[in-house]
């Protein structure tokens, strides 16, 4: 199994470790709810070394990426980041990405589960583009610092003016004396940063953040709370809300699909879906029950199966059980009453506004 540069830290801390897409990763340290609430109220540290990190290089790098992803990258400044989808010709989602425009590279962050697929997809479309792709996943560590105290925690370890880095922007700097790309991005619904550092520096940067962050109540956070945090923020996860059989418009990701200003693979299929209107939509559901609606459970309307849960959990901030599911567009309106079959019991659910959780200052 693959290990990140911080693997020893997790094992030494007594984290419960799991296999996550071939990586041996921490599921939880002190407890999912505890870690979740700490990120909402203070600050948490995440090892994201499993995420795929690719560099697209060469004079044709921007043309290559722009020809393949759904968002318009043409107006991006140096250091800017943008969320985008990688689609097949039929509009099915190959992966969701964060794309950075940096000095001499386009830096692409993809899901661990799709890393080889994304590399292959880029490489399969290189012809005539004067660009190439380097998989740098194992060379860099990736550490997320997330929560309302993230800025104070990280700010004490860097001379970079963090307040000056806008959301979805990144800047090169030093963290605890180690070179880092400091990015104001995240997957929790909180303010925070994601740091890319050379793998040999990972341990020192992590330890410095833990030590400096102790005054702010920092906790290390595992994949369990990463999932509950992103789900409260209604951020999709590939393999659950996204997949080859799903298009980004049905998933409610139209903000990252620029069908008029950008030309990319899959655009024609997505234009057809836009003009017809998606047949089904991803909705946010709040349950009436204390039982949890889990992935794959059937969504019912008047006794008929109309969809399936893609992710479901207990939302520790909301203190409610929540789920996301695809349902026919006619049943996707906020306030619609549906049921989920939880081991034979039809539990009442209500479609609510997306996201479930939004931080006050956002």
């Amino acid at each position: 199994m693959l290990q990140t540069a911080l693997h020893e830290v997790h094992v030494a801390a007594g984290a419960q470790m799991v296999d996550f897409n071939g990586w041996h990763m921490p599921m939880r340290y002190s407890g999912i709810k505890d870690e979740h609430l700490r990120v909402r109220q203070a600050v948490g540290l995440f090892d994201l070394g499993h995420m795929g990190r690719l560099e697209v290089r060469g004079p044709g790098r921007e043309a290559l990426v722009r020809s393949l992803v759904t968002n318009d990258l043409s107006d991006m400044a140096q250091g800017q980041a943008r969320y985008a989808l990688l689609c097949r010709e039929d509009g099915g989602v190959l992966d969701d990405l964060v794309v950075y425009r940096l000095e001499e590279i386009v830096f692409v962050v993809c899901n661990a589960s799709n890393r080889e697929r994304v590399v292959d997809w880029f490489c399969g479309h290189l012809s005539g583009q004067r660009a190439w792709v380097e998989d740098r996943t194992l060379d860099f560590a990736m550490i997320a610092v997330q929560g309302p105290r993230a800025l104070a925690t990280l700010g004490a370890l860097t001379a970079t003016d963090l307040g000056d880095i806008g959301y979805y922007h990144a800047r090169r700097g030093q963290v605890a004396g180690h070179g880092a790309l400091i990015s104001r991005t995240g997957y929790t619904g909180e303010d925070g940063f994601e740091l890319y550092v050379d793998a040999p520096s990972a341990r020192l940067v992590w330890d410095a953040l833990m030590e400096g962050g102790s005054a702010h109540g920092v906790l290390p956070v595992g994949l369990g709370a990463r999932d509950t945090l992103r789900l409260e923020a209604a951020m999709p996860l590939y393999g659950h809300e996204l997949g080859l059989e799903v298009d980004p418009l049905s998933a409610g990701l139209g903000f990252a699909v620029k069908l008029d200003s950008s030309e990319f693979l899959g655009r024609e299929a997505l234009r057809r879906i836009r003009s017809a209107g998606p047949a089904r939509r991803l909705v946010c559901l709040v349950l009436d029950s204390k039982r949890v609606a889990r992935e794959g459970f059937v969504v019912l309307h008047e006794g008929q199966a109309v969809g399936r849960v893609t992710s479901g959990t207990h939302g520790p901030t909301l203190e409610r059980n929540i789920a996301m599911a695809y349902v026919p567009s006619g049943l996707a309106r906020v306030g619609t009453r549906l049921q989920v079959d939880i081991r034979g019991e039809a539990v009442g659910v209500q479609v609510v506004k997306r996201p479930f959780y939004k931080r006050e200052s956002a």
Partner: protein
Amino acid sequence: MNPPKRSPRPENLRYRETHEWLRVEGAEAVVGITDFAVEHLSDLVHLQLPRTGARFRAGEVFGEVESVKAVSELYAPVDGEVMAVNGELPDDLDRLARDPFGEGWMVRLRMADPAQARSLLGASDYESHARE
């Protein structure tokens, strides 16, 4: 990280391999789940217990406990009828996490055949099973 806060595992209990414990009191028995089960599940969100008067055969499902990550069924260690239920427990799952062998008890059964309890695991056998 923080060492788990838990009461010591009592010596006089019998156990199922599925991590339920049973404390024999004459013809009756108190049933709960072990510290190991509670720690392993972690982050409890829901507990469903049977009603007083319900009857179960050994190995039948008498309830379920759900955590953020998973749901687990609860299995009756012996045949019996539910005489009492810890009705406050589903609303105070911290009590189960804190004191699984005491305040975290789940049901009191009248055993149909008290001899069945002897076929359950003893403390040391359970200990080695849980460590596997």
